[in-house]
């Protein structure tokens, strides 16, 4: 049996062979461990918030602490977990294998990206304990509060800046890799749709993140030097800040979801033993989402005071961006139709993804319409929407991909019944936790408040209990995945009988990925 990449003789001994590796597979695992650790932190913050909100009038923390909690929850979950999320972990590990490459185009920049990520994360965490205390601005850092508050905004924001740089460099790396390192015969149309998704996502990472970078830098410069660029007292325009912030942060949500869509698109053909329906449409829709995603950021700002003309334009464009996502959902359903379905855990999580993402997406339309937006902006409706698309969508898709590629990455198989049991807890807990929020928001409960009127008690209680059920599901799922590392059955090279290239090498792969670079003669979902 070939030695896997775990047993490679590295330039540096022991743990340093991991911390200073240039092997994309090891780097993918470094990201996996670190992003999941931050996820655990984010979950704890969320559970604490839900505990505070279990009943009207009851407090376990102060209002100031609550503000810092939701700020941190957002910063950690968004910048430290889900944006790096799939691209940095699964993308790093799997994409080069799928295109038949030995590694990414710039392996040293790859590990630099991880170190930037870790450093940025460390700085963001440090901001909790130094200076004026943890930021309380919300993860959106809106002006003027973010330039007036005494809390540790600059340090946290600089941490995010470094994480952004990490993301940008990864995008650059992956694009060059896909352009230059595809195996012979691997035409664009023979790439997996996961790789297509990583390709589209990399463009967003490359082009949108710098706008965030300059916005964050301007906050720091404003706090230190008072230049006045956003300060309304000096002529600055807080709405312009919102523009610049969302010019990045809207495309950012497509960084979160597109790779997840790519993962489930790879899973569906394998578990229905049928070629994917609409390969070209799905590939094109990834690119379309990436492009149109740049045009809709104003829908986060409908109540900010921007012009009516621009509100109408952004609302129209927002409805447009739903179309390519719809194309994907239809194609997935059509791919499953009359397939020979095996309801393995990856497919179960995929189905959960499709259902929850669709709810999230449809409620996005409610928010995209100007009149209804007025009613729901700043309420729990928005909170429910984005948790459905990000958590029910991107994260569920991440879990699907994690289970699907688990045997490839670790050479072991997880325990199927536990995976399914976890799913049940996750699905039930998730809907209890977040569907209640649709109700609360519609009834008028504002977000980012540490207390609420007694009439909101019922759904809040359901929501908090839902958070415990969800947490239970996460515990079962991660227990399963971690425990199976040690006691799982050996997986074999291709336990799913998949056709894409990563499954044509051993599990786990050797350091150089393939003994000989394969010559590709058929499509990625061609099971014949």
């Amino acid at each position: 049996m070939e030695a896997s990449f775990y047993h490679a003789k590295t330039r540096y001994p022991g743990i340093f062979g991991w911390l200073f590796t240039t092997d994309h597979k090891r780097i993918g695992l470094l990201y996996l461990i670190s992003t999941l650790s931050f996820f655990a932190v984010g979950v704890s913050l969320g559970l604490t918030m839900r505990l505070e909100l279990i009943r009207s009038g009851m407090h376990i923390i102060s209002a100031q602490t609550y503000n810092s909690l939701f700020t941190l929850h957002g910063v950690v979950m968004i910048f430290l977990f889900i944006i790096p999320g799939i691209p940095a972990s699964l993308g790093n590990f799997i994409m080069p294998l799928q295109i038949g490459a030995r590694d990414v185009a710039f392996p040293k920049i790859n590990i630099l990206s991880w170190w930037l990520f870790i450093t940025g994360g460390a700085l963001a965490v440090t901001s909790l304990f130094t200076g004026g205390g943890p930021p309380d601005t919300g993860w959106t850092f809106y002006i003027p509060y973010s330039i007036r508050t005494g809390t540790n905004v600059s340090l946290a924001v600089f941490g995010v800046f470094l994480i952004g740089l990490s993301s940008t460099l990864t995008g650059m790396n992956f694009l060059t890799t896909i352009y230059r390192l595809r195996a012979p015969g691997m035409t664009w149309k023979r790439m997996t749709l996961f790789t297509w998704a990583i390709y589209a996502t990399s463009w967003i990472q490359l082009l949108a993140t710098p706008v965030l970078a300059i916005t964050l830098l301007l906050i720091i410069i404003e706090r230190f030097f008072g230049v006045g660029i956003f300060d309304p007292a000096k002529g600055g325009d807080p709405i312009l800040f919102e523009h610049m912030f969302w010019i990045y942060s809207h495309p950012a949500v497509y960084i979160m979801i597109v790779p997840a869509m790519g993962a489930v698109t790879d899973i569906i053909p394998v578990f229905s033993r049928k070629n994917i329906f609409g390969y070209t449409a799905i590939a094109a829709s990834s690119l379309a989402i990436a492009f149109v995603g740049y045009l809709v950021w104003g829908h986060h700002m409908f109540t900010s005071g921007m012009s009516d003309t621009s509100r109408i334009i952004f609302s129209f464009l927002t409805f447009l961006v739903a179309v390519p996502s719809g194309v994907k959902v239809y194609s997935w359903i059509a791919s499953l139709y009359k397939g020979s379905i095996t309801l393995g855990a990856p497919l179960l999580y995929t189905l959960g993804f499709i259902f929850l993402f669709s709810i999230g997406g449809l409620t996005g339309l409610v928010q995209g319409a100007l009149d209804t937006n007025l009613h729901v902006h700043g309420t729990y409706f928005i909170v429910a929407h984005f948790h459905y698309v990000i958590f029910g969508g991107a994260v569920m898709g991440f879990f699907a991909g994690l289970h699907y590629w688990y045997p490839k990455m670790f050479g072991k198989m997880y325990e199927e019944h536990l995976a399914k049991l976890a799913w049940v807890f996750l699905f039930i807990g998730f809907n209890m936790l977040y569907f209640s929020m649709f109700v609360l928001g519609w009834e008028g409960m504002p977000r980012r408040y540490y207390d609420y009127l007694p009439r909101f008690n019922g759904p809040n209680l359901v929501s908090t209990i839902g958070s415990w059920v969800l947490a239970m599901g996460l515990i079962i799922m991660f227990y399963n995945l971690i425990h199976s590392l040690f006691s799982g059955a050996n997986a074999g090279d291709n336990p799913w009988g998949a056709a894409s290239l990563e499954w044509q090498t051993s599990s786990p792969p050797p350091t150089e990925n393939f003994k000989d670079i394969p010559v590709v003669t058929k499509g990625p979902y061609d099971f014949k």
Partner: protein
Amino acid sequence: MEQKQEERAHVPTQVFVIVWIALLCLTGLTIKAAQMKMGEWSMVANIAIASAKASLVLWFFMHLKYEKRLFKLLIFVPIITVSIIIVLTFFDIWYR
């Protein structure tokens, strides 16, 4: 490892010098346009001249003329992105 033969586009020194002289002339032109004090039309003229200068630098100094077609196509991606961002933002600024 060797560079591929196709990359050996030997640009003669004169080309670079001519481009440099053109850039200097355009710089002079843009100063003149500003001194004509046409108000905001001066700015339009100056941005146009700046774009001409930038194009010369991109095409010759940055070797874009001799690069693969992919590079020539890709350069439009950030340009279009920045343009879209500015235009969409101005729908707010102009009509507030």
